[in-house]
Every structure is written in structure tokens, then in C-alpha cells.
């Protein structure tokens, strides 16, 4: 089996900036040819980087049309057709995800970017993608160090705690360089609602450098608290975003802090404090002087591009290489995933259990993720297959981590020959709650496991 190349696009629509990358993912068969195939994504290489533009916003709404035009121009500059794009992700991040039309824009964009490009959002996923895109997970994997990665953008700071290369927890705080915008004369043009009650500065004021520095230091102290470098006060939870699935657990013990995001470029070196007409440079300086940089710290291999590179290079995964699909058309997008303990398949009221689980996510059908599947012999496989096959859901979509996808799908198909079935293995769902299934890649499928959480404007 020869190796195959996938073109993957990443588009990040952030609080401040919008950017796009196109990368090439090399799919290789790691098995020796004397065993079942084992496809993995080997090399990831960024082949095109767009310029960084300000996110087009009009009347407090994201200007989707302008972003689509930007995207089309990038495809042209990269010399690639949309039809050549195999996979990828559009992510709406930071304050932009709170805009009223974020949902609409997101789904329009993913459609316009290519038929296999998926829509993603949610601060937890954002944290993971930024940590991967900045090379922090790889650094942790190679060095064995425990890393706290902080991606500081315009509106939010995404935290990811990484142990041995794995992101173990994520969090998000309303700390960013563009919570305040100034005009050329130094007058405040915009003040993010998250600063309400935290500063007396308001729109139209002309703050002094000291006042702005004090604000930046306060925001920085929230990051210090989140890193366990400073005792926690009420400020920390006040600045925590509400979209995270779990509140951030302040890590204890030794760790190395790593930075990305636009503000990471302002941590080292000297810049005019008003270079960008916002808090970014001052926030970077405050971080440099704070406890975050008191010991060893690391600036990511990517800074402002970390999230978009994460979306372009690290959002796509491959299913196991022995899987089953029958009469199910691809791509499948935004499938809700429900966790089902495998032994429920053997119960008489199994279909009721599945219906109730799907009802909780407001859906009549979705992907059933079988949890706790043991090493199955043929007898157990047959029993599990009978339970699954009897479900009314069509198509029947199943996934699991253990390598049983093909055998299970085949067994169900034999008993229920008319049922459309998709049965994938090699997928581990932890926090993610949605699945996109893209094109077949040799014997397996490209998939994106994701969260999709967009907060309505408060």
C-alpha cells in the first residue's frame, strides 16, 4: 500500500485576527505488509500560510461574506482548487464565537471551504489545537516535561495542561490583548463587556500609560493564579469563560509555562506600547515581569498562528484500518456522539437506553460510542451485534476504540442485510461530543472528533 497525501485547510476566525493555512498530511501504512494494515498520519507540513488579517466585523456581527472572499483569494494564491482539499477545520474562537451570527457564519464557512471541511468551536478544543499548533505537546512528549500552555489571543487565553505529550485538562479565561481598543489619540474606542466591574476606564476616556499598565497587570495576575503561581482570588473565576465544559482546575506541582497567540509575540523584545492600539504589548510586558516568566518558560514554535496551524494540521485523525461501511454516504457532519457502556447492548431495554441518551442531545440518531469494550470472542461479538442490529436507528453509526469495527459491522450486516451501517474503531472519545466523517483514506476514514459549543450572546 503506497502512502497517500491529504490536503488539509485550517481557518481560524478569532477575536482580532483571521488567518488560514493549508497543510499536507502524509498518510502511511505502518504495518509490515504481513499483518493487517495500520494507517497513520506521519508527516504534517504547512504548505501555505495566509497573511493575518483583522477579523471583519460589521455592526457587531461577523462579516461572513468578507471571510469567504478572503478564503477564495487564499486558495488562488496557494494555487489549489477547493476540490483538492481532503479535510480541514474552520474554528471560530475567542470573542468572535459569542457573536450572534457565529453559528451561521461557521457553518457557511465550512461549506464554502470545501465539502470535507468541518465546523468546530468551543474553548476546550481551541486550547488543544493551540497547544498542538504551538508545538507544546510535541515538546512535552520529547522532553517528558509537564507543560502549561497558554494561548493568549485578542479576547481569551486558552490554557492546556500537558503531561507526557497528552493534554490532560483545558480551560479558558477572558484575558486578551484586545479587550480594550484605543484610537490614535489614545482614546478608548471599545471596551469588552468582560471588563465590567474590573476597571473604571470606559469608552471615550483617555487613560494614562500607568492606568493601562495596571489593567494589564491585573489581567496577567489572573493568568498567574490560573497557573498556580499566585494565590487564587475572586478575580480568577470572574474572568473564567462560561463555555468550558469543566471549570479550570489550577494545577499543582512543577510545570513549565509555554506561550502562543498574538500576545506571545509581545513577551520578549521591546515594542511601542501602542503599536496595535490595544492592550497587547502591555499585557506581554506584564507577563514578562510576572511570576509566569520567573523560571524557565517557552515561547511556542508558533505564536499568532498556533491555533490555525492546530486546526489545519491536528484536527484530522484517522479511524482504524479495518472498519465497516455499507450504504452510508459521506461526508457526515456534526454527528452527536453518545457514550454507551457496551454491556447495555446485551440488555432487553437497550433500545430504550439508546433513545434516552440520544434524547439528551436532542437527536433521534447519532453515533453510539461503545465504552469499556473488552477483548471479544465470537460469542460475545455475536451477542453485542444482535443488540446493536435490533436498534431502529438508520443509519446505524457505531464507534469504539478497540479494534473490532469490521468484525462487528460485518456481523450486524449479516443479520440485518438491509441496514445502512457505519462501524468505526480506533477512535477514543474523551471530552469531544461530535464526530465528522470525511472521505475514505485507503482502508480507513478521515475523521474529526470535536466539541461544538457556541454560547449565545448574553
Amino acid at each position, binding site marked *: 500500500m503506497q502512502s497517500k497525501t491529504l490536503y488539509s485547510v485550517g481557518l481560524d476566525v478569532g477575536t482580532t485576527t483571521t488567518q488560514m493555512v493549508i497543510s499536507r498530511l502524509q498518510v502511511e501504512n505502518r504495518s509490515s505488509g504481513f499483518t*493487517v494494515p495500520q494507517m497513520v498520519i506521519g508527516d504534517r507540513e504547512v504548505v501555505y500560510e495566509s497573511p493575518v488579517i483583522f477579523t471583519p466585523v460589521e455592526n457587531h456581527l461577523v462579516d461572513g461574506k468578507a471571510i469567504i472572499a478572503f478564503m477564495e483569494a487564499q486558495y488562488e494564491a496557494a494555487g489549489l482548487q477547493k476540490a483538492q482539499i481532503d479535510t480541514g477545520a474552520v474554528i471560530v474562537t475567542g470573542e468572535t464565537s459569542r457573536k450572534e451570527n457565529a453559528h451561521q457564519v461557521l457553518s457557511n464557512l465550512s461549506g464554502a471551504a470545501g465539502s470535507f471541511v468541518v465546523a468546530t468551536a468551543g474553548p476546550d478544543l481551541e486550547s488543544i489545537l493551540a497547544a498542538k499548533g504551538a508545538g507544546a505537546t510535541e515538546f512535552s512528549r520529547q522532553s517528558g516535561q509537564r507543560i502549561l500552555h497558554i494561548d493568549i489571543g485578542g479576547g481569551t487565553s486558552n490554557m492546556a495542561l500537558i503531561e507526557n505529550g497528552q493534554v490532560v485538562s483545558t480551560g479558558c479565561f477572558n484575558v486578551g490583548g484586545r479587550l480594550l481598543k484605543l484610537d490614535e489619540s489614545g482614546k478608548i474606542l471599545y471596551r469588552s463587556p468582560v471588563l465590567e466591574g474590573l476597571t473604571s476606564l470606559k469608552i471615550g476616556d483617555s487613560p494614562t500609560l500607568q492606568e493601562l499598565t495596571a489593567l494589564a497587570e491585573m489581567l496577567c495576575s489572573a493568568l498567574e493564579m490560573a497557573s498556580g503561581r499566585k494565590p487564587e482570588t475572586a478575580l480568577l473565576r470572574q474572568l473564567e469563560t462560561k463555555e468550558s465544559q469543566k471549570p479550570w482546575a489550577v494545577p499543582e506541582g512543577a510545570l513549565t509555562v509555554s506561550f502562543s497567540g498574538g500576545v506571545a509575540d509581545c513577551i520578549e523584545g521591546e515594542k511601542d506600547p501602542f503599536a496595535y492600539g490595544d492592550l497587547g504589548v502591555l499585557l506581554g510586558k506584564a507577563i514578562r515581569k510576572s511570576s509566569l516568566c520567573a523560571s524557565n518558560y517557552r515561547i511556542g514554535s508558533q505564536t499568532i498562528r498556533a491555533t490555525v496551524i492546530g486546526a489545519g494540521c491536528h484536527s484530522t485523525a484517522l479511524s482504524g484500518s479495518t472498519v*465497516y461501511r455499507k450504504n452510508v454516504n459521506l461526508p457526515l457532519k456534526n454527528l452527536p456522539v453518545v457514550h454507551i457502556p457496551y454491556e447495555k447492548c446485551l440488555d432487553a431495554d437497550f433500545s430504550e437506553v439508546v433513545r434516552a441518551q440520544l434524547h439528551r442531545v436532542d437527536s433521534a440518531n447519532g453515533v453510539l460510542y461503545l465504552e469499556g469494550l473488552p477483548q471479544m470472542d*465470537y460469542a460475545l461479538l455475536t451477542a453485542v451485534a444482535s443488540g446493536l442490529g435490533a436498534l431502529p436507528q438508520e443509519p446505524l453509526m457505531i464507534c469504539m476504540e478497540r479494534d473490532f469495527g469490521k468484525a462487528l459491522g460485518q456481523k450486524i450486516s449479516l443479520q440485518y442485510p438491509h441496514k445502512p451501517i457505519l462501524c468505526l474503531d480506533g477512535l477514543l472519545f474523551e471530552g469531544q461530543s461530535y464526530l465528522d466523517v470525511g472521505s475514505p483514506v485507503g482502508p480507513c476514514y478521515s475523521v474529526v472528533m470535536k466539541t461544538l459549543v457556541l454560547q449565545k450572546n448574553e
Partner: protein
Amino acid sequence: MNKEELTQLISDLLQQMDGQPQVKGSEYKPRDPGPAPAPGDYADGDFVQDVSALDLRKLYMVEDPANGEKFRRLKEKTPARLGVGRAGPRYKTLSMLRFRADHAAAQDAVFSQVPEDYAQKHGFIPVQTKCRDKEEYLTRPDLGRCFDESNQAVIRKAVPNAPKVQLVVGDGLSSAAILANAADCLAAIRDGLKLKGIETGEVLFVRYCRVGAGDAIGDVTDCQVVCMLVGERPGLVTDQSMSAYITYKPHTGVSESSRTVVSNIHPQGTPAVEAGAYIAELLDTILKKQVSGVGLHLEG
């Protein structure tokens, strides 16, 4: 010949053996946690009831490591005996005992027999190659590839019409592998073939079987493809690894390069049922393309 000479002879022979590949560490997938229990909390000098039950991949025994946790994580990816520590220039007692226990299990798998009633229990037709016993089987590979007149007659009677796919189970060099995997794998293969509309007849069970016995079965049955599940020569990683050898148009004298093999079928490698589903599809492809072995190119 005394026992020691025989053991030496056999171990020499095992090393030169054609066909059956040894279980390779690099093909070992770490996805399965392996046999329970998982006593990563074993400490030097603890009493161990059964050294074989310890999961070596979770065990790191170097004293005062710089980063033991990191090494232990690396170890989870390989069955190789790394990070075992040492007592002066030698192995620790545990490593020594485990090594010998695994070696003994490998030898047992070669020397032990698949039970007499195995074929009957699973509805297979039992036949035997020209080897009269295990010792002859081990010392005369040539006899393990052919059948005498009476066994040929049994095969002819069991498989009267030339089938598309002839399924065969052979004990090979590991009875343990066959007992652990063959029936489950075969059930999944038959399911898969049924889905593709390929009927299979009686399954043959061959005692004292080498891969080449499939060629002789091809001669007798005139099947289009023979698919043989056979116990792999055991290594020190597992004694339960099974392979499937698939040959299009099998006949005596067919070249080894015309076989397609799926190896490493065991609980910590590819599970038997999943391998079965894969093999069924592979058989369908081989029938359609009318070729097996190095000439078979699968779409990547």
C-alpha cells in the same frame, strides 16, 4: 538420540524454518492492555505468585532513574525487555525467571498437541500429514507438507466439488495459538464470505501441518483459493500468535512468493474476530484479482 540432543536439533531447526515468521516486536500493537493483572506496582523483592502474569510493559525496574515515568511510558509501546535494571553485570532474578518462563511456554506450545476431540468439537474434518508424531513433524518438514493415500481420500470425500475457498486449520508450530484463536477467527471469516456470497464447504483440520500442506490440499480439492490458519513459531512475546496463509490456485510446487499472509493474530495483536473479517475481504479481493502473494496490490 537423547533428549538434550533432540532439543538442540529442534532449536537449530526452528531457527532455519521456512514459512512461519517469528512474532516480531515491531508488529506488536500496544492498544490492548494485555493480560490482567497489571501490577505496575511490583517492587524489587516482592513475592510473585506467577512471573508470567506480570505485564512487563508496565514494569520499570531501574533503580534511581532520572525519569522513570517517561521510560515506563516508552516501554508501553514495546514488548522488548527494556529498563529491567541489573544486579551487578547480570539480570535481576525476576528478569531471569520470566525469561525462562516465556521460553518454556514457547517450547510447550511447539511440543504440545491440539486435543484429540478439537476437530470434532468444532465440526472440522480431521486429517493428518505424513508425519507419524511430533518428533517426526519437527525433524522432517517435507513430510508435514503432504498426505498419504488414505488421508487424501478423506479430503476428497469431504470436499467433493472444487470450492472457491477451502478453509484449513493447521496446528503448525503452536497448538496454543490454534486453541486461542482459530475457531473465532474462522467464524468471522465464514460470516464475511457469506456476506460476499461466497459459499464455503467443510473445514479441514490438519495435524502436524506445515504451510505447504495447503498446496497438497489444492491438488486434491482443486479449490481456487486455500486459506490456512496456522500456529506461528512462538517467540518470547507470546505463544498464541496465529497466521493466515492465503494461496490462489494452490498446487504442489507453487512458489512461496505467491502466498499472502496475515500474521500476528492474537489478543494483543489483531484480535481473532477482527482478523477474520479482514481475511474474508482479502479472500474476496484475491478471487476477483485472481492473484495472491507479491503480485497482489491492495489499494492504499
